[in-house]
């Protein structure tokens, strides 16, 4: 039985279902309880589940995220909201030195079943400090898992899996996607981490993307087909680490041309990793160099007119695609 709900509601359903399923799951973050969430993802959860399960934290990311890491070592499963992923930088030591390495440094005696979630995106005219997209930074850390859902369906299924996972999973959402409506079935389902999704089939070109760049690619694919008769396949990574290389390679072997698209900066980004992997493992299948589209390589600009330009637009993807087709 299908219905349409928006991305934020899908995440909220995942949180509520997991709170009900497992008494060790609790939510903590700034304004998540009585204020109902800065972006209303957690709306109504405090009223329903109370102080123990939905906790308002003071503005103190290193404190409450480190606390969650410690609590997880004893078996709790904190789901910690960052109002923006940009704020992760004040909790870096806890999120990397502690969460990512405590299992390793204990020789496997400990594990850290935490989720840190919140929006990680530019495009909302809030300036560079609030517009970071750190999936590449955290994806660089063995021990961490990073997930970037593009649709409501994926957001719900991936969030439930993230909460049940026994390793630290960092879920990067997008404020510009929170209000987007998608078909989401009633009832419970999960989506495994590390499994990409072909969001649109095509035979001429592969567009690889994650997060909101997937939506950009879907629009670009429509334009390419309507105006240039190019059938683009859109591969949504969904999960950055673990990474589904096979689905990317299968698509490349079918289409022989690739554009890797991301809203992050180009240098040492996820796209760089994917591009290197494709040239190494599918070199003979390529009919053109792997092309990339990323955000323009500067801190996120405030000016609304220009921030639109700084992030990849469907036309940017089309232009890049035409350059290799």
């Amino acid at each position, binding site marked *: 039985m299908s219905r349409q709900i928006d991305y934020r509601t899908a995440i909220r359903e995942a949180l509520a279902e997991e709170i009900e399923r497992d008494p060790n799951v*609790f939510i903590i973050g700034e304004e998540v309880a009585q204020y109902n969430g800065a972006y209303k993802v957690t709306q109504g959860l405090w009223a329903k589940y109370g102080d*123990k399960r939905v906790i308002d*934290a*003071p503005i*103190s990311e*290193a*404190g*409450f*995220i*480190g*606390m*969650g*890491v*410690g*609590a*997880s*070592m*004893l*078996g*709790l499963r904190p789901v910690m909201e960052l109002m923006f992923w940009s704020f992760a930088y004040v909790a870096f*030591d*806890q999120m990397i*030195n*502690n969460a990512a390495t*405590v*299992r*390793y*440094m*204990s*020789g*496997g*005696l*400990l*594990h850290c*079943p935490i989720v840190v979630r919140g929006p990680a995106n530019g495009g909302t005219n809030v300036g560079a400090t609030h517009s970071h997209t750190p999936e590449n930074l955290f994806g660089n850390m*063995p*021990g961490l*898992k990073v997930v970037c859902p593009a649709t409501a369906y994926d957001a719900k299924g991936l969030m439930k*899996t993230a909460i049940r*996972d*026994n*390793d630290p999973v960092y879920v990067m959402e997008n404020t510009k996607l929170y209000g987007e409506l998608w078909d989401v079935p009633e009832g419970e389902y999960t989506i*495994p*981490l*590390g*499994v990409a999704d072909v969001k649109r089939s095509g035979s001429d070109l592969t567009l690889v993307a994650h997060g909101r760049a997937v939506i950009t690619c879907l629009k670009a694919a429509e334009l390419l087909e309507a105006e240039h008769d190019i059938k683009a396949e859109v591969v949504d990574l969904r*999960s950055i*680490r*673990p*990474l*589904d*290389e096979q689905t990317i390679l299968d698509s490349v072997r079918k289409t022989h041309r690739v554009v890797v698209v991301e809203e992050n900066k180009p240098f040492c980004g996820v796209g760089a*990793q994917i591009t290197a992997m494709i040239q190494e493992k599918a070199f003979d299948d390529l009919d053109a160099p792997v092309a990339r589209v990323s955000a323009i390589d500067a801190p996120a600009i405030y000016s609304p007119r220009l921030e639109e330009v700084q992030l990849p637009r469907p036309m940017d993807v089309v232009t890049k695609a035409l350059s290799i087709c």
Partner: protein
Amino acid sequence: MVPAGFSKRHYLTIMSAILKNEPGTGAQFAQEAINQTLEPSDKVRFLRDMVRIRNFEERSNKAYSQGRIGGFLHLYIGQESVAISAASLMGPNDHMITAYRDHGHALAVGMSMNECMAELYGKATGCSKGKGGSMHYFAPDKNFWGGHGIVGGQTPLGLGIAFALKYQGKTGSCLCFLGDGAVNQGAFHESLNLASLWDIPVIYVIENNGYSMGTSQARSSAYPEYLAKRAEGYNMAWDVFNGWDVYELRAGFHRAMHRAHTESRPTIVEIATYRYRGHSVADANSKVYRTKEEIEQYENLFDPITRWKNTLINEGVITEEDYRQLNHEALQEAEAAAQFAEQSPWPTEADITADVYHEVDHQTESGLTGKHFFND
């Protein structure tokens, strides 16, 4: 006495704090209920544990100078009484976490010399399979949660452990140790605020050995007197006691743990103690930022092992000969641990990528989807 550029008000070294406190006999603390219930065997065990820690560290120091141990080696020598007194009070729901000077705490909670020494040698038989090293010992089965290398980084974790106890409805506490150098880290202050705000049964134990690496308290803390007094800024109880007498330490720890158990309230305790060796074995300046006399003065007056030994002799619990025997056994145990470490196998190359992800290690469905490692 006061170095140039420092006001007298700010000049407070651990030595001047110590000298203000006449080294008592500990007799008044011996009378406290928590110490009255001790059996002679308990008292001997405390002495043995301290002596074992010291022998372990002396032996590891030797191994370090022989090139058997890599990286850092932060010795706890001089502070042994603190860890063993705290550990002696831990019940099934009391937990411990500390910073990088962790050998003493690890042995105090019951980790073996073999696994600890082998970890220093980087061997597969080490407590962390040779993956953590000196600063990263763990024993969750003994309620010991590390062993953390970043100064102050463990303070939110200690908060979280105590939070989990409260969440699970358990009456317990978490003893979270830190040094005097950690009190200026932001994560510590965030933890203090949350601990007090949410009534978390965590006890922050500042082992004030006078120097954060080479920087004295006078040169690092705006507060001219007790570091623990910072608790007042967070509406939290605090306490200060001396670190060289087991009775006094147990009495002090008990007050804080009782508060945690009965009121679910946090405490900062500050303990005046002293490390004889450098910040780490590699600390070339350990006799530059302080005088040789200062070190000797402390050792002569306040050495916790000598003092506890004398206490037990005075009480008629042991004789000098008993002590010599105990010391000899610890020396042999440490030597055997070094031999064990020496003869243990190295971890294999395949071990490098094990223990990174729980799901991969356990070959769960989640561990089998997607690529977790990227070398090929």
